């Protein structure tokens, strides 16, 4: 794998994806072997909007590789507040660190920032755009539980606004998965995303009800439907209620169905699912650490 920056899951070939996931599996199997791998490395964290979980995951990954992090802190206390451009900020901070992680509320910010720096930069979310490490940890979880061969996956919930979903769908196309999208009509995949997936040769089908496809699924990826997408509370409750699952719902599923969710959840997966063997969403979140360790290690020259 040779990428200076990780901006979008779309830039990754199937070979790249397998390389990262294989490396993540090696790390997960024996994390101690990698504990001093990057003891001189400093990772700069530039979070222009709060995302405590993602920041903790990157911090953990860098420290588990023996390195350390420097954190810009909150935007309120930084030069950004004084009107500094993003291009200037990253050019200053790259001088302090060996690699950068950027989270920013505007689309395209990570790509632009990467054009101004020489150290590797990882996009940790750019507005409604890309979040490639989320996609990679999703893929890792899918591969560990169901494998990519003959994979049939259902993605349910808010498919219109969810960047996690769009990015994952592209990556699943790269690994030739059969994809089913389950959502209310008002929250179906945007036309541009559907168009791109078709162009890329994706096998996709759309449904408004989970029942008709649930028994065929190897993986069910659930996302949250947000109240602000609806004109009023009662309509939201009615629609969202049709896309919630509990242990009873899953009685119709394959025994080895894997249920995933990017978290945090609200009530789209009932707590009684947690006790079933289907539930993998906490493990999915944990997988963010070995996957980010693998990515950082590869970007920092660990494969040499």
């Amino acid at each position, binding site marked *: 794998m040779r990428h200076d920056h990780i901006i979008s899951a779309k830039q990754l070939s199937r070979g790249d994806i397998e390389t990262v996931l294989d490396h993540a599996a090696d790390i997960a199997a024996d994390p101690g072997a990698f504990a001093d791998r990057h003891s001189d490395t400093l990772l700069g964290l530039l979070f222009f909007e709060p995302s405590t979980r993602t920041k903790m995951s990157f911090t953990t990954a860098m420290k588990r590789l023996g390195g350390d992090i420097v954190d810009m802190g909150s935007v309120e206390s930084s030069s950004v507040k004084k009107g500094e451009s993003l291009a200037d900020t990253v050019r200053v901070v790259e001088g302090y660190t060996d690699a950068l992680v950027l989270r920013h509320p505007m*689309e395209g910010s990570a790509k*632009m920032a990467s054009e101004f720096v020489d150290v590797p930069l990882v996009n940790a979310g750019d507005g409604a755009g890309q979040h490639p490490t989320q996609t990679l940890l999703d893929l890792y979880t899918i591969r560990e539980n169901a494998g990519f061969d003959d994979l049939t996956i259902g993605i349910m919930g808010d498919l219109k606004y969810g960047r996690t979903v769009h990015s994952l769908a592209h990556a699943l196309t790269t690994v030739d998965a059969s994809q089913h999208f389950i959502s209310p009509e008002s929250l179906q995949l945007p036309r541009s995303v559907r168009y791109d997936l078709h162009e890329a040769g994706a096998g996709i089908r759309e449904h408004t009800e989970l029942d008709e496809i649930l028994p065929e699924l190897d993986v069910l990826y659930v996302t949250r439907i947000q109240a602000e997408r609806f004109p009023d509370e009662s309509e939201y409750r009615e629609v969202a209620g049709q896309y919630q699952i509990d242990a009873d719902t899953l009685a119709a599923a394959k025994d080895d169905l894997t249920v995933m969710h990017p978290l945090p959840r609200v009530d789209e997966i009932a707590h009684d699912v947690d006790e079933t063997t289907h539930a993998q969403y906490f493990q999915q979140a944990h997988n963010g650490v070995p996957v980010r360790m693998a990515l950082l290690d590869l970007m920092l020259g660990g494969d040499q």
Partner: protein
Amino acid sequence: MSDKDQQLRVSKIQNGTVIDHIAGGQALNVLAILGIDGTSGDSVSVAMNMPSDRLGHKDVVKVEGRELSQDEVDVLSLIAPAATINIIRDYDVVEKGRVERPSVVEGVLECPNHNCITTENEPVDSRFAVGDDGVRCEYCDTIIRDDLPAHILAE
């Protein structure tokens, strides 16, 4: 009447560029996309909605004293794909050409996504990949399919 006869209605230029066969009504957008707004003192003449055998109606733009490069004129393909370019020296046409679709246009269009980083005060030009049925922002992936002239950046 042929196109050639119609051209005579606009005064001949001594040195410069004639952009002919612009789709009727697009002349001002052509000037905008080329960043010609009269402030540099260029002498510019515009003829709009001339009858044309090929296009029905066409616009013609003549820029005195300035020879446009192929890169400069190629962006016109987005709004005037049939345009022809004549470079004039001493009243003679010394070079004839057409516009070719570029693979990328930079600093010409404004991204319609207000949450795109290129719309902020950053030291970066907008950049769009040109596809078969539209252009796509290389930063945020937003696609513009229709009404490209409405997205031409104000200089």
